[in-house]
């Protein structure tokens, strides 16, 4: 699943990632812009997704990701890996990873790298679920 979190309404980047994942043979659920952390978690649950990709351009990435991870835990689905992209400064990465975000992609990351990450993360997650 690919979601655009926060108030900023531009989703070109998120859409490009969604397309690339689709072209790599994945089924991508796209939620569109201006999603709240609650919406992202509820959607992930209803769609039973393997990986959540989030794009944030508003600058509020730390507080939004905190809320998102809290929500995942509340709902008992913290085993779903999350990756984050957008305008994330290099210096913020350690803190974001400490919150529980699986992977952060800086601007300019190659799309191949993202595809490879998502593929591996999905496999890992599926192996964790016993059924």
């Amino acid at each position, binding site marked *: 699943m690919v979601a655009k979190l926060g108030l900023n309404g531009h989703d070109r980047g998120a859409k490009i990632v*969604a*397309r690339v*994942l*689709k*072209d*790599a*043979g*994945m*089924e*991508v*659920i*796209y*939620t*569109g812009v201006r*999603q709240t952390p*609650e*919406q992202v978690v*509820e*959607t992930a*649950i*209803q*769609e*039973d997704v393997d990986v959540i990709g989030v794009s944030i351009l508003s600058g509020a990435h730390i507080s939004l990701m905190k809320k998102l991870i809290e929500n995942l835990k509340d*709902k*008992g*689905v913290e085993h779903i890996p999350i990756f984050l992209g957008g305008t994330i400064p290099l210096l913020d990465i350690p803190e974001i990873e400490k919150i529980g975000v699986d992977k952060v992609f800086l601007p300019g990351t190659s799309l191949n790298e993202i595809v490879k990450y998502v593929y591996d993360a999905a496999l890992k997650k599926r192996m964790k679920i016993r*059924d």
Partner: protein
Amino acid sequence: MIEEYIYDYIEKAERNDKRSIGRLLTFLESSPSQAFKVLNIILRNNVGKAHVIGFTGIPGSGKSTLISKLIHHYIKDNYKIAVIAIDPTSPLSRGAFLGDRIRMQEHSLNPNVFIRSVSTRGLKGGLSFAGVAMVELFDYLGYNKILIETVGVGQAETDIMNIAHTVIVATMPGVGDEIQVLKAGVMEIADIYVLNKSDKEESQKTFEYLDFLIESREIGSRIGWKPKLLKTSALMGQGVEELRNSIEEHLDYCTSQGYFDHKINLRRKTLVKLFLEKTLIDKLSEEFEELKSMNVEDFSSQLNILRKKIEYFLREFDKYI
């Protein structure tokens, strides 16, 4: 016992635990044997009650937006609503872009609404086995309105007639090929035609033409119901209440004529057909992969190899599912 966890999920799903419902839906779209385990439990003594409504029509005509607006009305009526939004799988990459939710996310936190995106996964029809199986699950769980969105391309869309009590075809003004689509038969299946985007200038002309086709019976009525034609603007929220009323009118008609239960019957038979179809196609594809690496040249020997495999598979069917 392997089914233990499925009972567990079903029990929780009955209490509207969304996560369990989400898992069960995944089982229904994974292997046929996994789906069979779920269906075998939920279809025991279950009489269908849900009103199943199919939305089809050209991409971009506003089906997802219409569904979202309709949900507002159904929420007020205290219904539990399920949406099954089907989008095509790319034949080349086998991936899919599932974007119907974009228009419906305002309902994502409502406990009485459940939205699930489904891709066709290479099946010829817009409606896969998984899609129909999902209808059965939502029906079992007591959802009142089950809305199915499919992309209106190709003959296979007529599948929706076997599944939905009420079929709605959405179109929009100013589509060059629209009339061709109409003639090709996709549009002949509706109980209700919706001309959406009627806020657009060109809409009156298209409306008059569609009206003419219905009045002159160029597009047919089925089981004694004359198709309705409505103008909506999903974007402005216009005509949506009329659409809701027309859908109820059609439901009343179906019920009074005994078609409601008849449709459920037909749907479950369709489910069996699709189940077997998927199981056999999966098996055949598997054996085909093996055949590719075999050194057999002539047609009848190749046919014999595949036929024997399928015969054996059918004889041992119980063990596979």
